Each structure stands twice: as structure tokens, then as C-alpha cells.
């Protein structure tokens, strides 16, 4: 069990700065997910925590002790690699028990721990197999078994599910959630997948090009994104963003419609409006609403996605719960749910009640 603190961490490869100003305080037992676009430095950050990459500057502490220059083996942190990194010449049991073999633990103890972990992960029948004789999902479980058998202070996962098919990914996601509940260990998890991030995390850290954009609970990020990047990165389908001009008590859309935003104190700096597809209502085309024409309609069963063209505004995506009988070419009226709208300033910041005073 461990509390992990990153204080003003930075990482450079030569002159290329990959991460900067990383401040993060991870509580004991917390499940933190790192998300961000490809190349933003998620793996690098994780590898620095594991000790596989030297930390260029800043302080890295576990339970209050500085760990910057401690070797990986002495940090007592387990890592599950994206490639699994199973030892191909060892069978499943030896792969899982390798850390105990290294520590020269008694053979019976190793055996019982391996058997126990094998049972937890449903690998009992496969203990004598080599990694090449396993399916992708089984390999993934072996990689997790190798981590949990050590009973480490913290777990690191680098996109552990990205090599699995969709169904298996859902199954393993639940497995990991269950594991976290059972072990109550600190976990840091890197993923591309929003659903994984939103479902697993106690807190999500959004990274972009080496900077932390926002840290918060899944709901926080969804409801109160700190900036346009987070707003568009979290949530699927992506939030619509349209240009607006500021007006008192609200904003004016490009087609001239005035949208009142009474929940925001000051919209004076607003240049863009963000609205999630699920926060737009479809109403009668002749009602007092934005006039639009459906361009593409996707029926997902539980939801309907409509890509609509709004007069004077351009393309807007709408997500409606349930199955509605819309067809491409249909005329629609769209009404934005004002309380769920976000407005952004020219530098991409979100204008919110608590922030407008400072702005």
C-alpha cells in the first residue's frame, strides 16, 4: 500500500522535453488513470514511476520517501506491460512465480501462491503451458498474475487491454475493477480508451503534449472540463464546439440566435460554445429552435446518432436516447440544453462560475 507523490516532475530526452510540471498526489489505494492522445508521454510517466526511465528533474516519493534514484527492484512496484513481456521459455507457473524465484522464496510457498493467483485469474488448468500456447486474454491474465503474486505496494498498467478484442476487453476491465476492490492497492493505469478510464478510475489525469490538463473524478471531467482539450477528449461521441460571440447573460451563435446562460456569471470572454451530443434535444422543425437537416443517421439500438447540418452554424452531432425514426434529409429542430453548455475563452479555458472572477 502506498501513497505516490510526483512533485514538479519533468522529463527530457536530450533537448526534447517530453513531460513538464507534473504534480500529482496519488492516495493509498487509489485507482488513477492516465489518458491522453498518442505521444503525450503517458508511458514515459509510468516508466519513470516504475524506475525504467531516469527522472530528469523533480521529486518522486513513495510514502514520503524520495525514490528518484532507487532501482526498480527496490521500489516494490509491479508493472503489467502492454506487450505482456512474458518470459517465453518459462511456463505459466514459473512466469507468475518468477519474482519469488528471484527472491529465493521456499518452493512450497511459491507453489501455493502461484496456485492461489492462478485460481483467482482462472488459470489453474494452464499452469504448465508456455506463453506461446496461450490465447491473448490468457496471456494478459498471466501478466496480471505475475504482478499480483508479488503483493506489491503499487500496480502500474500500460494499456494492458489494447491487444484484446472488444468483448474480452470488457471482461478484463471488470476483472481489473474486481482486482482493485479485492487488493485495495494503489493502481496507476494508462489507456487510450475513454470507457476504461471513466469506468475504472477514482481519478483521471488528462495529459496533452507533456502537460497535465486536468485531474479529477470521471464525473468532474465530464461535467466540468477545465479547458476545451479536456472537454473534447473526454466523452464519446466528441463534444460539439461552435464559434460564438459574447453577449451579456449569454452568447450569440453564428446564425444570430441568442442563447441565455444564466448559470455562468460572466460570458464576456466567450469565443466558443461546447455542447455534448447528448445535451441537444430534437424538437419539431417548426418550433422555436435551430433549424437543421439530418445528414447521416446512425441507429445504435439504444441510441440514435444524428449528424445534422445547422443553418448558419455547420455540422452538429446529436445523440438521442432510444430509437427515433429520423432519416437523412429530414428537417429537424435542435434545442441546446443551456445548463449543460460550456463556453471557452480564446485561450481554450472553460469559463465557469468559480473561474470567471479570476479571469
Amino acid at each position, binding site marked *: 500500500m502506498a501513497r505516490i507523490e510526483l512533485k514538479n516532475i519533468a522529463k527530457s530526452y536530450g533537448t526534447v522535453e517530453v513531460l513538464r510540471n507534473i504534480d500529482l498526489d496519488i492516495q493509498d489505494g487509489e485507482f488513477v488513470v492516465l489518458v491522453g492522445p498518442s505521444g503525450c508521454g503517458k508511458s514515459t510517466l509510468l516508466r519513470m514511476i*516504475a524506475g525504467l526511465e531516469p527522472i530528469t528533474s523533480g521529486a518522486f516519493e513513495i510514502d514520503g520517501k524520495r525514490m528518484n534514484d532507487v*532501482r526498480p*527492484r527496490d521500489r516494490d512496484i509491479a*508493472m503489467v*506491460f502492454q506487450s505482456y513481456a512474458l*518470459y517465453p*521459455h518459462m511456463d505459466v507457473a514459473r512466469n507468475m512465480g*518468477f519474482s519469488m524465484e528471484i527472491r529465493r522464496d521456499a518452493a512450497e510457498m511459491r507453489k501455493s501462491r502461484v496456485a492461489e493467483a492462478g485460481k483467482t485469474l482462472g488459470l489453474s488448468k494452464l499452469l504448465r503451458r*508456455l506463453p*506461446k500456447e496461450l490465447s491473448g486474454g490468457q496471456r494478459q491474465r498471466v501478466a496480471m498474475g505475475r504482478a499480483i503474486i508479488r503483493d506489491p505496494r503499487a500496480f502500474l498498467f500500460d494499456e494492458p487491454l489494447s491487444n484484446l478484442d472488444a468483448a474480452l476487453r470488457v471482461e478484463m476491465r471488470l476483472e481489473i475493477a474486481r482486482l482493485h476492490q479485492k487488493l485495495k492497492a494503489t493502481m496507476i493505469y494508462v489507456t487510450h480508451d475513454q470507457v476504461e478510464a471513466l469506468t475504472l478510475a477514482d481519478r483521471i489525469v488528462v495529459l496533452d503534449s507533456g502537460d497535465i490538463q486536468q485531474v479529477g473524478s470521471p464525473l468532474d471531467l465530464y461535467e466540468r472540463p477545465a479547458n476545451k482539450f479536456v472537454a473534447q477528449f473526454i466523452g464519446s461521441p466528441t463534444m460539439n464546439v461552435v464559434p460564438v460571440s459574447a453577449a451579456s447573460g449569454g452568447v450569440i451563435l453564428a446564425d444570430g440566435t441568442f442563447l441565455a446562460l444564466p448559470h455562468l456569471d460572466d460570458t464576456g470572454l466567450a469565443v466558443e460554445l461546447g455542447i455534448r451530443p447528448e445535451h441537444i434535444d430534437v424538437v419539431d422543425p417548426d418550433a422555436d429552435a435551430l433549424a437543421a437537416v439530418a445528414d447521416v443517421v446512425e441507429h445504435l439500438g439504444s441510441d440514435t446518432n444524428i449528424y445534422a447540418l445547422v443553418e448558419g452554424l455547420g455540422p452538429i452531432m446529436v445523440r438521442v436516447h432510444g430509437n427515433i425514426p429520423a432519416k437523412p434529409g429530414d428537417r429537424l429542430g435542435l434545442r441546446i440544453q443551456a445548463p449543460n453548455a460550456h463556453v471557452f475563452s480564446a485561450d481554450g479555458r472553460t469559463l465557469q462560475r468559480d473561474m470567471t472572477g479570476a479571469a
Partner: protein
Amino acid sequence: MESRAVITRKQNTVERGETRARRSLYWQYVVEPFVYLSPSIILIGAVMLMPLIIGISYSFQSIELLRPFNTGWIGFENYAKLWADRKFWIALENTFWWTFWSITLQFFLGLGLAMLLNTHFFGKKLFQALVFLPWAVPTFLSALTWAWLFNPVIGPLPHWLTALGILSEPYNILGDPDLALWGPIAANVWFGVPFFAITLLAALQSIPGDMYEAAEIDGASAWQTFTKITLPFLAPMIAITVMLRTIWIANFADLIYVMTGGGPANSTQIISSYIFTTAFRRLDFGYASAIAVVLLILLMIYAVILLVIRKKLVKV
């Protein structure tokens, strides 16, 4: 167009009936492959099997160029003579030590070099080029150079060995029956290390980096990583290169021939140099063939043993 062509062919097959089909099946599966293989079969037969068979048949004949009228089949007489030949047994023992020390030193030095070259250090490229240089020097030249190096009149080695306390006084070890074999072994090690360094370096570089990272996180020390990760990954390559090199070194008489000529007093005679001397100095081809057949059998037994071990060892 396409579809019509297919239909025509179908009709053909149906019309021509069953016998035809069966014969074409026989042709297709039994005879046809060998027609394609025939160039390689003929080539292998001509350059490998024929000489082998002729060579083996020589070992059962008396073929001495110095006694041309005494030629003929003599059964196992050559082998009986071999059994009683003291020089043969000396050569066999020398072959063993020559091969054993050459391969052992070459392998461990080569492995060390490969591991060194697999890291990063200043001037690595230049060092790498230098390491691989001996491979490019003609055997004959390196043998002569090493012979000179061991000559106390012009070479430094005897003086160094004396300074280190290994020799009592600087003399030429190539002239000492007890030590002479070490001369060619030293030359051979120098000559053969690059081979192991190159092949093992290639094998080292093919080990995925995340294996080492996983081992590091699992807490393995450098030595544990080496024995539990690196060696198992290298095992297939080690088995095959050690086998090839052993066979080659056991047959490799050039260095010995140039440096000591098998002397003094046969103390550096190995089987292959003995074969060479017997065949081309004494011109006794029958007897030389008998020795060659024995060497062939010994090496085949060795290769089989090593391949069995390899199969047991290699899981990847």
C-alpha cells in the same frame, strides 16, 4: 472470359475418365516432386555423396602411390592397422584437446565481447571494426605471424610469458612437446573469437528489451538476468554455433600445419593434419581414408549428442 475457361476445363476432366485421373494423381504426388528436386539431387549426389562413397571405399582398399602394383581390396586391414597405430591415438588425443580448448576459449571470449558490444560506450564503432578484423586475415598469414610472435628472437610473447612467470626463460614454446599445442590454440582463439562475437551479438540484439525490463521489475540481479533470461534466449544459437565450430576446428589443420607442421615429435599432430600427412606426404590414400572415416563417425556422434541436448534445452 474467365468463367468460360473454367467450365471448359471441368468438362475435360469429366470426359477423360477415371483411369486418367488416377494416373495423373500418381504423377502429381509421387513423380512430379522429384522432377522439380532433380537438379539439387543430382548436384548433391555429384559433389557430396559420390566423393563420400568413393572415400569410404578407399578405406577398404590398399591405395599407395608409392606401390602402384599393390592396389586392391583388403577389407578391414587399414582399420586394424589404425587400431595398433600409436601415432593415431596421439593425434586423437591432441585433436580432443585442440578442439576443446579452442572452442571453450573462443566461446567465452566471444560471448564476453558480444555482451560488451551490446552495450553503449565511446568508440564502440571503431572497437567493433577492430574486433571483427581477425576474421578477414588469411589463415596462412595469421599462422605465420603467430609463429613469429612465439619466436623469442623476433617475437615479444616468450619474453612476456617469462615476465609473468609462466615460462622459466624466454624460449619458443612451439619447440617444446609439452607446450607446442598451445601455440596454434592461441592463434586459433584469436582467429575464431570474431565468429562467436558476431553470431552471439546478433542473438543478443534479438532479445526483446521488455524481457529485461520485466526482469528488472521482478527484482532480478544482473547475474540472475543473465542466467535466467539471456542464456535461455541464446541457447539455440549457442548450440548450433558450438556444433558447427567444433566440427570445423576439429578439421582445421591450417594453423597447425603452418606453425608446427605437427611436430615436435607429433606433439601437435591432430587427426586432420595426420590425414593430410598420410595422404599427401606418404601418399597412402587407403590408410588416410580409413582415418578420415573414423573422424567422420566421431564428429557425427558428437553432432547427434549436441542436437539432442539442444532439443532438450530450447523451449522457445
